[in-house]
């Protein structure tokens, strides 16, 4: 039973990493939101697995709320923003796709290098899964760096948060249900404020490209 549990975890984590990589490759704003939805759903699945493994009923309430915030409410807000401001094709990056892929490969290699071997002290079984989580964190970080659009950067931040949650779940660093509820509520508020703020910026400057905004300011 325990062996199957770790295999499921590994499989889900691999899918989370894949979604992070695909976020770098897609060129449409709506696609990146869909990918975020998928990634969030995978995180929820990971939490469900954890709750089954730990037989914790309180965690189920957190899972339901996480599902509502990350898989339903946040994407609805983002789709509303895209539709309202016609942002379907406004993705632009600093690095082109081949170079981006090279950097992603390097980041996955770094995650599996001896830099992070000390983390194996945290988890004795399934260290490969832990490395996948770290790779996912680094790739999400890189998404924020490489994207010029404010919407993509917001998705990058949320993807980073998903990766951290997955890492915490894998490393057994989950917090009490009360604290997790607080974190999810925090994300909800952050998403609402960010979307409203981005909407106002777009209305003011007619662009969500951060480099263009800097020129407009000057």
């Amino acid at each position: 039973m325990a062996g199957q549990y770790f295999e499921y975890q590994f499989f889900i984590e691999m899918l989370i990493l894949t979604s992070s990589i695909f976020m770098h490759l897609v060129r449409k704003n709506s696609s990146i939101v869909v990918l975020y939805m998928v990634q969030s759903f995978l995180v929820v699945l990971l939490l469900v697995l954890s709750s089954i493994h730990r037989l914790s009923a309180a965690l189920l309430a957190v899972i339901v709320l996480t599902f509502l915030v990350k898989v339903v409410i946040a994407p609805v807000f983002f789709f509303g923003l895209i539709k309202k401001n016609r942002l379907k094709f406004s993705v632009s990056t600093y690095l082109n796709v081949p170079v981006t892929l090279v950097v992603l490969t390097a980041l996955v290699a770094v995650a599996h290098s001896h830099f992070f071997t000390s983390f194996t002290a945290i988890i004795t079984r399934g260290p490969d899964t832990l490395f996948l989580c770290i790779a996912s964190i680094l790739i999400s970080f890189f998404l924020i760096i490489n994207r010029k659009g404010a919407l993509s950067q917001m998705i990058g931040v949320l993807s980073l948060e998903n990766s951290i949650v997955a890492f915490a779940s894998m490393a057994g660093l989950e917090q009490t249900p009360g604290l997790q509820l607080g974190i999810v509520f925090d994300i909800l508020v952050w998403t609402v404020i960010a979307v409203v703020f981005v909407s106002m910026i777009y209305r003011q400057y007619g662009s969500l490209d951060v480099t263009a905004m800097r020129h407009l300011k000057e």
Partner: protein
Amino acid sequence: MPALGTIDFWVFIIPAWFIAGAVVSLLLTRYDHAANLAGGLFAITGAAAGILFAVSILMSGTIASISMPTSFPWLSVSFRVDSLSAFFVLIISLLVLLCSVYALPYVKHYYGKYNIGLLGFMYNIFIAGMIMVVTADNGIFFLIVWEIMSLASYFLVIFERDNPEHIRAGSVYFIMTHTGTAFILLAFLLLYRTTGSFDFAVIKNSASAIPPLVKNTVFLLALVGFGTKAGIIPFHTWLPSAHPSAPSHVSALMSGVMIKTGVFMLMRLFLDIMAPSPGWWGLVIVALGAVSALLGVLYALSEHDIKKLLAYHSIENIGIIFLGLGSALFFLSIGDEAVAALCLVAALYHTFNHAVFKGLLFLGAGTVISETHTRSLEEYGGLIKYMPQTAFLFLTGSLAISAMPPLNGFISEWLTFQALFSGIQLRSAFVRGVFTLAAGSLALTGGLAAACFVKVFGTTFLARPRSHAVSHASEPKLSMRAAMAVLALLTVLLGLFAGPVVSILSKVAAELGGFAGRALAPPADVWSLGLRDGFANISMPVVFALLTGGTAVVFFAVRAVFQKGRTVTCRTWDCGADLSPRMEITATGFSRSIIMIFKGILKPTQQTDTEYNDASMRYFPKTSVVTLKNANIYETYFYRPLVNTITRISGYFKKIQSGSINAYVLYIFLTLIGLLVVYVMRGM
């Protein structure tokens, strides 16, 4: 809290009294006269209490202390007043008392123009700051009160804020004083790292455990930090512009006592807390003192703004104090406590004397400025006719600063010479060279200072008025004259009673950690002062009697000879032209020949503007104006390149702050990776 009436209680109550005066003055800000009166009276009563307190400590030899812990483990509100602190409290209080008496009528000309309540507030806070600086016993508390003193003095410098020149001077002062504070902070942090405490007593007890490298670094940091406040060259650039910008009674305090707080801390650190010290510390200070003394007087000689000129003389006199201090450090390092004590006594004596005569000169200059509404020496002349008492008092100050016997400036410079001569007798050729050059520098400084004050007194008070305002000048109010008269009397008394003063100062020196009670007081009584086992002896009362008697004999002899003949009064032959002030020698003309001798150092620039009767012909000049200025070599070769370098480096750092969120996240990312690398490397 100590019991009411004990001496420890006064340590706390005196600064608190000044702070109360500041608050009351601020509350009365709507009423100019009441605010002036309140600020002045609190300062006068507080200063009187300060004098009594300091004298009682000096006479009894007791130590007053008080310590109040705070919620921060490294900070305690600690005061400790030993003889050295009491000596500085005495100087500060004495000058504050007389400057405050002077200020009561002087400040009236600001009524209706500036906020008098604010002036009273800053003035009292400034005094409280100075008193607390010389009595603080904890490094962090010291930095707090140091900052209070610096900020209050900054606001006093820019008090006449309508003048852009004052704002500029204030900005330079603000930057320089905070740069100095940064160095002091670094010095204290280094001491804390080694000793684990900011309390001066703890640092002193652990001083032997401080590694030499740390000690030397602290020396250099403290020298720059406190040297900036003291105004030594090349950290003096703020002083000639900041001191003249403040109201005259504040200028007197800044020049007379505030800069001495830097000297006080150097004495406290090097001769008490961190003693013993290596010999090169003393030699560095002697060299700095020699350079500051000589260049200070040269710059003063070429200056024609009376307050700036006096400010440059402060640099000169700080240089003389440094000669004594540096010599004391050196002789202490070679174990000659008796000569070291003599050197320190010379430094302390000159500290006191400079406060007195510089206070007198600044107050005299303030009186002249308030009557003529200008600071330019070129626009004075003939003021002795309209302000004879002020002229006499200013002359006394001029003679004292020029080290003329029997006044106080003479005896402290004589003691400094004895200190330097002791260095010349040593075996090491290098040390002998340093002391010989320092003695030469001091001799030259004395001569140039006398020349400078011949210029100042001559162009200000003698000959005929050079401007219309002079002919309307009159003597100031009685309290202003009284304050100056007391200072003038002190210049005489401090010169006349050198023996008792030296005895008291020897006791001050003996209490410092470096001497550990071993200081040998030179044989001195009211009549004579003997130094270095009879090598040098002087009797100031005899000098006074000889000079007075000699002057009287000459006076009566001349009178007897010339009264026999008929005195004929007739007009001076003037080549057929009308006698006018333009025929008098100007301050520029007087100093030109000396400036040209030192042109290699001063780098003078001369500009001649000539107006012709016929501009097309240009044969017959109507008027010709010569403007002589000195190039600011410190700005050109030190501060400007420094500022340019800092600006260039700042430009690189500014590029990092691009405003792009991507860039900021990239920095976080790279830092994360960097930390991981460091972590792994350390693990390996």
